[in-house]
């Protein structure tokens, strides 16, 4: 009898605990996040989430690995269909793709500039996600560029690190010819089906394929012309090793074949994946374009930002989370820099210890401090909604230009293809 009673009491107690836990769970929010790299933005987001959950135990995170293509497809289909079930609360979107979403689906994203001070972030990152005066992104990883180079090859050809510091592309071509002659190593490698090299040169002057929203900026764009001319000069001098895809691209410098890699800071992880090359690499600012107004040593390639969907049932929690961790926690940014090699866009992050540290892989240079210096100076451009089309049009002409084709004709062809696509 007593045993029975005890058993009942216990069952009741368990049931009551269950109910009370369920009611807590109902008040709590689980934020679903979509992002795509298990070595990069996923652990960074997980770390941010853990920090927020520690201070707000009611808010938990469910981070899903969804590729960029998937995110674009799913968002496009669901926003078009007007169906929000299954969409996340927070989503990561590539910067040059966001204007398309903001302009095609107004009201689908929460304007974060209403609640977060955007002046804390690198200007050009905020500008990329600004539409009709409001900014929608919480800027995340930067594609701030640098010129990664093999100092041992340079030395072999008789150059010092100072010789590639703050130079122009034309000077780099001269150095490149010398290095090729003396060491047999070509300057860079490039996939002619990727215009990353061109956009890095062009954005360093504050120009883009499009201007004033969505007007093509091709034919009368001196920066684009100078970029293509520089590219042609490099290709014609045999300084570029053509590769056919990403594997080939990374392979040519990880194997030590080419001497330099002008690229976004996110390539650092790939370069450092070869421990035996430690101490042989250094990083200089990107060369500047010759003879173009507004030419700088700072540019960008790639990068993405966080967005809160208007359909989210937990908007307030999502915004508060982005505000307290992503927009304030300098310590958090040190962690993701060390663990994931993620250079965030929060300007204050550079004051942390990890950013100040020097890296033995790069000859004990304070590379992170340098990158964050450059980050603040990247010229802002307006990506518009037709950047993917413009990039395709440019890529179509690259092989021809590399073979010595006429650049004005190529610009005409790019302009024509882009305008046709925009109709």
């Amino acid at each position, binding site marked *: 009898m007593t045993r029975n009673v005890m058993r009942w009491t216990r069952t009741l107690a368990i049931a009551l605990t269950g109910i009370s836990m369920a009611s807590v769970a109902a008040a709590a929010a689980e934020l679903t996040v979509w992002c*795509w790299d*298990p070595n990069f933005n996923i652990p960074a987001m997980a770390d941010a989430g853990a920090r927020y959950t520690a201070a707000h135990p009611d808010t938990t995170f469910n981070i*899903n*690995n969804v590729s960029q293509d998937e995110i674009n497809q799913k968002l496009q289909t669901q926003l078009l*269909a007007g169906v929000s079930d299954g969409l996340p609360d927070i989503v990561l979107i590539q910067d040059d793709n966001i204007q398309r979403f903001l302009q095609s689906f107004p009201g689908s994203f929460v304007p974060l500039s209403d609640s977060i001070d955007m002046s804390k972030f690198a200007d050009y990152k905020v500008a990329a996600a600004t539409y009709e005066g409001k900014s929608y992104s919480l800027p995340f990883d930067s594609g701030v560029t640098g010129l990664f180079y093999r100092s041992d090859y340079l030395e072999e050809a008789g150059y010092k690190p100072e010789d590639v510091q703050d130079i122009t592309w034309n000077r780099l071509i001269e150095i490149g010819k010398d290095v090729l002659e003396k060491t047999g190593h070509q300057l860079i490698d490039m996939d002619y089906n990727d215009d990353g090299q061109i956009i890095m040169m062009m954005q360093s002057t504050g120009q883009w394929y499009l201007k004033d929203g969505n007007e093509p900026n091709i034919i009368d764009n001196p920066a684009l012309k100078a970029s293509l001319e520089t590219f042609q000069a490099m290709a014609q001098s045999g300084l570029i090793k053509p590769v056919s895809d990403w594997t080939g691209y990374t392979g040519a410098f*990880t194997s030590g074949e080419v001497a330099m890699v002008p690229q976004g800071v*996110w390539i650092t992880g790939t370069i450092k994946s070869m421990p035996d090359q430690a101490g042989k690499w250094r990083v200089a600012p990107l060369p500047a374009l010759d003879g173009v107004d507004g030419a700088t040593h700072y540019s960008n390639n790639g990068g993405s930002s966080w967005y809160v969907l208007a359909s989210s049932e937990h908007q307030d929690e999502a915004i508060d989370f982005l505000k307290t961790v992503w927009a304030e926690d300098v310590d958090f940014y040190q962690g993701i820099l060390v663990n994931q090699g993620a250079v965030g866009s929060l300007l204050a992050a550079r004051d942390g210890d990890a950013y100040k540290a020097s890296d033995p892989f790069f000859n004990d240079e304070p590379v992170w401090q340098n990158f964050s210096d450059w980050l603040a100076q990247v010229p802002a451009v307006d990506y518009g909604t037709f950047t993917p089309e413009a990039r395709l049009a440019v890529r179509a002409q690259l092989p021809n230009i590399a073979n010595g084709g006429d650049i004005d004709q190529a610009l005409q062809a790019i302009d024509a293809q882009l305008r046709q696509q925009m109709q």
Partner: protein
Amino acid sequence: MSLYMLRRTGVYLFLSLAAFLSVFPFFWMAVGATNKSTEIITGKMTPGSNLVVNFQTLLSQVDLWRVFGNSFLIAIVSTILTLAVSSLAGYGFEIFRSRVRERIFQLLLLFLSIPFAALMVPLFVMISRAQLTNTFTAVILPTIASIFILFYFRQATKAFPSELRDAARVDGLKEWQIFLFVYMPTMRSTYAAATIIVFMNAWNNYLWPLIVLQTPENKTITLVISALTAAYTPDYGVILLTTVLATLPTLVIFFVLQRQFVQGMLGAVK
């Protein structure tokens, strides 16, 4: 004789080259699965020792059994239902005469030319109204009435001798019995060929599952491969291992049904 030998040598050289070209990607995939990502990038062509590590990495990132379970469930149910519906329809179209039959059939063939991307948004609205998003039903349902398989069965049915059907009728079999006990056994090889086609399509289906399946526990193997390749520094060893694993089921089914598949392509009834 020497001319004959020369010709044979030429033929065999050509065939060897063709065989090499078609087998090489598989070889590279299998070898890559045993190597480190950095070794694959630098073009290593020999088997390495990283298979176990790749496998462990894969298991730590992906609930492999669940993912394969999902893919198998979708592919098998899709195959059975598609064959049942589309073979019945193909049979019906050929056997039963009607005035509008050709018109309807032409209309169906016309639908074949509509790209799936154009149907995706309305289909998604339908599925979400029916509250089927994020279910396997949503993946399977739109594939069942396959116009291509219907067409394939109709063409194959043309070779199905009407004498057989007449004899069955004389023996007193009902129409459904004829289909079940006469037609289906006769058309074994057609079914086998269709099984391979439908299973492969369902197994490799990417776009629609991508749109309609939303939570990680419902992911199929194609979605997992896509997610693996999305990383900025993809681990090619793990990716190639996953593609090897994803290729195995279709490979096994093909080899099991190979004889019937070839027969089915040549026509079921001799």
